[in-house]
Every structure is written in structure tokens, then in C-alpha cells.
């Protein structure tokens, strides 16, 4: 059983590395992400309703919907959490002490291992597929519908758009450079099902990726990445995004240095849980939209 949805939203941090790293991306999508936290505040902001009794009613319906497992919301939450924790392999104990504080990149350097490019590429594609599957769990379109996802991707805004921006910047550009899309494609094409099975991130979420076996799942991952390539490429081009630009902005918000690029990717994996954070925000928004409409 998951934590209650109101607790998840109430406990969203207002500061710390994840929040600061996301704020550093504001230059890409100005004003789109406001770091909405707090369950009642989210209800008010999403619906525009201010009457406390109405807010309570909406909150109760949202809680009930989240707790109905058949509706897929808990699965979506699990996906967002798991893909973030699976990709960062440092012990929870080491991080727990530092969450909410200024994490010093240099202070952690000796505990970081640069992730091989292949593993980074696989992570990128799995995170993308996770977004697709979570989207379908939340919004109810059957999990195989890449076409619908593409249509909705064009409409992504707010915390969902921020999550995609962070995927491109933190899981694409920074660890893999400007050719991250080609690298993702090449890695998937050259990957065997067995190799996929050994990937930590894949292991975390494989149960919910469509496909009867690893080969089937690998095909789905490849098709999904292929379909979203265009969007990612346009996103980079239309915002003139470069690795340098992203890192430059990041250094203004998070205590990291540019000259240890290999380690920066690993550090972001460990310290920036943007999927879980923005995923909770997206989930809360959708639940609340449905709750208020159904009442």
C-alpha cells in the first residue's frame, strides 16, 4: 500500500537539490513549473475553488480515487518512484543525511562512479518508456498507444513538461552530450534482451513495460524511443539547448563544477529525483481534475 496521496503531496520539498536543479531549467521553459506543493494548495490552484468545504470534498474524492487500485494511480506513482531510485545506486543512508541540505558535489566525488555511456543511454530510454507507461496509467489510454502519447506530448505543460525537459537535459545532454538521441537509438539497436535484463533501471520497472518477455519489452522500448525522437530533437533545437548551457545554469543553482563532467551525470542520478518529484505533482493534478469534475 502506498503512502496516502495527501501525504505524498504535503511532503514534497520546497528546497533541496532536486528542486534547485529543476529551477535551473526554468530558462528552457520559463514560468511553466511553479513547484506546487501541499495537497490543499494544489486543489485550490488546480481548480480555482476556495471554499473550504468544497476543497475538502474534492480532496476526499481524489483520495478515494487514488486508493482504488483498479484505477492505476498507485501503479503510476510506483513507476515514477522506482525509475528514480533504480537509476541512482548510492546507498540511501548516505543520501538521507543530505536531503534538504546543500549537497556538495565535490564532497560526494569520492563516492561517485561515472556510469558507462551504454548504461546512461539505456537509462534514458527506460525513463522515457516509463513516462509513456505512467502517462497511460494515469490518463487511461491503453499502454500501447504511442500515437496518443505523441498527441498529448504536444500538449504537455507545467510539471509534465518540466519532467520531459529534465529528461532531455539531465539524462540526455549532460551525460551523453549533443548526440544523445543517436546514442540512445544506437544503444537500443545493439542491445540484446539478456543485456537489457541486467540493467538496474530496467529491472526496477520491467513488470509494467508492455511485452511478454525481455525481447518484447526491448522492442517496445525501441519503438517508443523512435517515436519520441522527433519531439526531443525539436525541443533541443527550438531552445538552442547545449550541454554547456544546461550545466552553466545548473551551476547557478546547485553546487557543482563543470570540470568533472563524467561525475556530474552520476551525481545527478543520485541526487536529483525529478521523476518522483514532478511525477507526484502530475499525479495529484490529474486526480484533482477528475475529482472536481466527478463531484
Amino acid at each position, binding site marked *: 500500500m502506498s503512502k496516502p496521496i495527501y501525504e505524498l503531496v504535503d511532503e514534497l520539498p520546497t528546497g533541496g537539490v532536486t528542486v534547485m536543479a529543476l529551477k535551473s531549467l526554468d530558462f528552457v521553459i520559463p514560468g511553466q513549473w511553479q513547484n506546487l506543493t501541499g495537497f490543499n494548495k494544489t486543489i485550490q490552484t488546480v481548480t480555482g475553488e476556495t*471554499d473550504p468545504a468544497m476543497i475538502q470534498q474534492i480532496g476526499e474524492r481524489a483520495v478515494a480515487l487514488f*486508493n482504488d487500485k483498479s484505477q492505476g494511480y498507485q501503479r503510476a506513482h510506483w513507476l515514477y518512484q522506482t525509475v528514480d531510485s533504480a537509476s541512482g545506486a548510492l546507498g540511501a543512508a548516505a543520501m538521507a543525511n543530505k536531503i534538504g541540505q546543500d549537497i556538495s558535489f565535490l564532497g560526494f566525488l569520492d563516492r561517485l562512479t561515472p556510469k558507462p555511456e551504454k548504461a546512461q543511454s539505456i537509462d534514458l530510454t527506460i525513463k522515457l518508456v516509463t513516462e509513456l507507461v505512467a502517462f497511460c496509467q494515469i490518463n487511461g489510454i491503453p499502454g500501447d498507444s504511442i500515437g496518443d502519447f505523441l498527441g498529448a506530448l504536444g500538449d504537455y505543460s507545467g510539471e509534465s513538461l518540466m519532467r520531459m525537459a529534465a529528461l532531455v537535459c539531465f539524462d540526455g545532454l549532460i551525460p551523453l552530450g549533443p548526440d544523445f538521441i543517436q546514442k540512445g537509438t544506437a544503444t537500443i539497436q545493439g542491445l540484446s534482451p539478456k543485456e537489457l535484463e541486467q540493467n538496474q533501471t530496467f529491472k526496477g520497472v520491467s513488470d509494467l513495460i508492455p511485452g511478454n518477455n525481455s525481447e518484447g519489452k526491448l522492442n517496445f522500448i525501441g519503438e517508443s524511443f523512435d517515436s519520441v525522437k522527433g519531439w526531443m530533437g525539436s525541443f533541443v533545437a527550438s531552445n538552442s539547448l547545449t550541454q554547456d548551457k544546461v550545466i552553466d545554469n545548473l551551476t547557478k543553482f546547485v553546487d557543482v563544477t563543470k570540470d568533472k563532467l563524467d561525475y556530474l551525470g552520476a551525481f545527478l542520478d543520485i541526487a536529483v529525483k525529478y521523476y518522483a518529484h514532478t511525477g507526484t505533482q502530475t499525479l495529484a493534478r490529474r486526480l484533482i481534475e*477528475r475529482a472536481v*469534475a466527478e463531484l
Partner: protein
Amino acid sequence: MFLPRWRNALAALLLSTLLFTTACSKADDSPYAQVQEETTQKGAPAAVDKNAEQGSSFNKFFPSSAQGYDVVFVQEKKGFAEAKLKQNGKDVGMLSISDTTSLPSAAQKYQASTEKLSGYPVLEIGATQTGLLVSDRYQVKALTRDPSFTKENRRAWLQKFDLTGLSKLK
């Protein structure tokens, strides 16, 4: 120096009591603690009725994009379908159809309605919503998401739904 056995047992009891009470006290003060309990205990009723209509059945009754507004489908779940209304790329409103089988109180409130829209009982709900009820079962709503989308706009868009078609849904 070891504690006598009974003191060991007492220490264990006190420690577990302390852990138990600190663990339990957290959930109690949320205004949602009660509904959380009610919807997670064994045998809790599902939020969505198993006989609720599939959301996919509702899509065809939604209005189409028109007059500078885009209708973009965003949710389709059991008993629920929703679309965003966008104007010049900005979210201005939401349109939805829901099956009140899952939430009877949603239908019951229309008993207090004193006016009709397109022949169906209509209500202003909260500060941002207009709803109507079709066949005593399907609630059609228009919700404001930007102040520019007024009550008049909501009513106009409600009338654009294929309400007759929806009324024939069995």
C-alpha cells in the same frame, strides 16, 4: 552488568509502545485521515463502480474544436472522460462527462436545480463549474481554468455537447 530479566521485558515493552504510538500519531491529524481509512480498509468500496460506463463511450459526445478554441482530450478512465479547452495555446477550461453510478451524490444534487439548459437540469457548482445531468445518470460539466472563460462561456460549451446522443446511451 546485565539487567534482570523482568527489566529487559519492561524495556522492550516500553520501547515498542513508544515506537507504536509515534508511528500511529502521524496519520491522525490530517483532514483526510478518515476517508483514507475508509477507502483502504478491508472490503472498502471501490471509488469507481464496476458497472460504470467506459470513458471511451463518451468521447463522441464532446464538442469539436471551433471558434478559436481547441478541444484536446486528456483523460479517459472508467466512468470518466475529459478534454481541455484551449484558446491561443492557453488552457481556459475543462469539459467532462462522468457516470454518477460511482458517486450517487453527484446526481442527487440536481434535485435542487431550478432551471434547465437544453432541457436538462443545470446547476452552478462552486465558483468555477456549471453542470447538467442527462438521463439522471451522466453529469456533463464545463469548468473554468482561466478567468476569461466565464459562466456564459461554460453554458455555451455545455450546449455544444451532443446531449441527445448521450441521452440515448444505455
